[in-house]
């Protein structure tokens, strides 16, 4: 597992501790019950902190699944 994926999994795990690693990797806004607007904002903040990136306001909506977050992180 590459480093970015592992670090992103840690972020998701902190936010959704009830999910297993496979469930986290498959997680989307539509499939996780407690992935609400507060969770979305918290996720973006954690990613910014963990990966030292700054997410533009108009990019927030892209962070709607684990894979989408990973694609963003790997593109930075």
């Amino acid at each position: 597992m590459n480093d970015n994926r592992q670090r992103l999994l840690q972020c998701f795990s902190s936010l959704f501790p009830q999910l297993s690693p496979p469930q986290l990797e498959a997680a989307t806004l539509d499939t996780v019950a407690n992935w609400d607007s507060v969770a979305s904002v918290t996720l973006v903040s954690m990613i910014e902190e963990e990966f030292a990136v700054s997410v533009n306001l108009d990019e927030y909506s892209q962070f709607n699944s684990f894979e989408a977050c990973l694609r963003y992180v790997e593109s930075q």
Partner: protein
Amino acid sequence: MKLAEALRIVHGAMEGPSNRLYLACSFEPLHLQTFLHAHCQQARPGRRLEVCKGLYGDLAGNLESSEARDAEALAVVMEWPDLDPRFGMRMPAVWNAETMKDMTQEAGRRLNRLGAAFEALPSRVITAACLPTLPFPPVAFTTPALASELELEIEEKLAVFRRRIASSGVRWLSANVLAIASPALARYDFKSDLATGLPYSLTHASHLASAFARLLFPPLPKKGIVTDLDNTLWDGIAGEVGPEGVHWDLDHKARAHGLYQQVLRSLSESGVLVAVASKNDPAVVDKIFDREDFILRRDHAFPLEVHWGPKSSSVERIAKVWNIGLDSIVFVDDSAMECAEVARAHPQVECLGFPSDPAGVEAFCRRLRELFGRDRVTDEDRLRLTSIRQNQEWNAATGTGEANEDFIAGLQARLIVDTRRNPPDPRALELLNKTNQFNLNGRRRDEGEWRRFLEEKGAFCWLVSYEDRFGPLGKIAVLAGRHKENLASVEHWVMSCRAFSRRIEFACMRQLFEALLVQTVELDFAPTPRNGPLQVFLAPWREKMDSAKMVVASACFESRCPPLHHTTKELLNER
């Protein structure tokens, strides 16, 4: 603390009954709430915490409705928009000379309302608060380097406001301490403010939350510091250069050591026990302590362990003289080897290396303040070292056995029983939570629980002071419980170890029967690994020590009570 770590702490909290903390602010607390929860949970590892927040946009309303939240603790976070919404950056506003005048007046009105809300808070709720922590908004037409009239007027109003509230027991966050941890320019997150309503950067939110946790749930302060001498308390090795060859002043480039002496003296005069553990020639050390320019005087430190033996043994002996646990002691030495030796023998002792670079001494002194800081200095604190010396004299007078009857009768012993509960004397809770040996059941109370208990109907709390011809011991015992008709039910009974051998416990028991006019006293006893002395006291009235409520009748007590010679005075009026 990172946000992910804070979330893990919050989600990992244990099950069970929780205590509630109410976060009152007008912005969206979001990550501040998470960090506050995590830092406070770390400060209270044994109890689950629940953090609730108020309504967006209404700090005063949130404060006014705080009692309905039934919270044990309250964190109040003010920001500029609470003084006037036009100070905020999220909504449009007009900034000109006229509106600035109006904003100043509005700030005055809002601070009045906030002041009234603070003053109405019940005293049982532990409250901590901060004034605005973000940089002053760019409202005025002056350059930012020049403090505008608006900024000066607002600062003055805030200073008056804080002074007004200080007497109501609110714990104000120190702006200076926050400035060290959280640089001003790194606090405001404009993007976050616009996107979520939380104006703080993650780092500032974490630092602010950490500071609040220390205010609301402070760690127990350490009680004693054992210090080395050479190249610690002074610059130089006394045995090599002689008593006049060691220095601690600016002229000899040794002022860092003088600062350390100054802090130790200040600690001693506020009740912290100070002792010396040094491998040195006692005669040389004596001469240095006699120097006129020595900042730490003889009566500031006791005992002085000056010899060539291991420092771990010195620390152990000092702890016995002080009669405190090793986990309450800080050991300071410039030698890493000595620190390691003490740490290996006594892992509970906090060992600190005295900085070799003078530049590090100022921060070191701040660290000592953190370890020993307390809300107030009481008469007990000032008496502490004196009473330890008195105990040494007592032990010398009585020898190794129990004092004889003539000695006890001639003590001129006097008890003062303070029954006042409103406001509660903080010494009572301090004794309850730190006493182990003479402790009825080992149960502790946190501040919120204690305040609620004291407000219950029928509750009593006696704080007992003692003095005799050897001098005052200060406030040394607490009895607390409930009084109902012909029964006094004692839930807490603690007594400081330095008060042993004076039959104070018997006098307290007699006072229960006489002052409360009861024939029966019920003691909520439970054995603990350390309350042996209490068990010895109860033994005459109990065949078998186990957990159960002990009931002692007045006649039974008197039949086994030794002669008592104390005079007793009660302080009865509510404050």
